[in-house]
């Protein structure tokens, strides 16, 4: 069966520090991968998605970036965090040609 992992689960970082959040999927190959951000009590904002290794589509221009160095690995990064980067970050995947997205447990990021 397929499993999606995200780490860390919780992160507290100072303003201006770098960020690296990792997402991996097990039990499937060539999935579509997605990064979302959810502010407190708000909806999901799609940040990036990827249909293959090295292929990244950005939905929102900001100081975040994403990379997909391996088929089942999706990384969200920042060189310098802003206060507004605080939120709950969700990774999701879907099999090629399918529509339902399967979500990871999320990372709660607090920027102080």
């Amino acid at each position, binding site marked *: 069966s397929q499993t999606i992992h995200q780490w860390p689960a919780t992160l507290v970082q100072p303003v201006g520090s770098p960020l690296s959040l990792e997402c991996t999927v097990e039990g499937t190959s060539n999935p579509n991968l997605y990064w979302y951000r*959810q502010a407190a009590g*708000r*909806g999901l904002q*799609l940040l990036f*998605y990827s249909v293959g290794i090295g292929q990244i589509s950005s939905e929102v221009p900001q100081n975040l970036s994403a990379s997909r160095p391996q088929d089942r690995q999706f990384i969200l990064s920042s060189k310098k965090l802003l206060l507004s980067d605080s939120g709950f970050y969700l990774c999701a995947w879907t099999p090629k040609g399918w*529509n*339902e997205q399967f979500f990871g447990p999320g990372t709660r990021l607090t920027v102080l």
Partner: protein
Amino acid sequence: AQTVTQSQPEMSVQEAETVTLSCTYDTSESNYYLFWYKQPPSRQMILVIRQEAYKQQNATENRFSVNFQKAAKSFSLKISDSQLGDTAMYFCAFYDRGGSEKLVFGKGMKLTVNP
């Protein structure tokens, strides 16, 4: 571009009662999927129910059912016999089969089931 609107930000219901969550969407496409996702306090996103646009029959999953009105572009979720564990954020989402490989989510609504 497709949009999904959930006009009720918050609702509450008594345990064992029935509640309906509303969702409307805008698209020019004819071949698509609609979803309701649930996000309990644990924040894990869980699929509740899925509807294929070409199917006229409304989807049902145990206590959860939808009222899909394609012409009106409406997709409401009915929860019967509400349980305390139904307390969560609920998100309506749209997927265009012929378009980009993305889900478009509504802003969500918070449902509280009271004992």
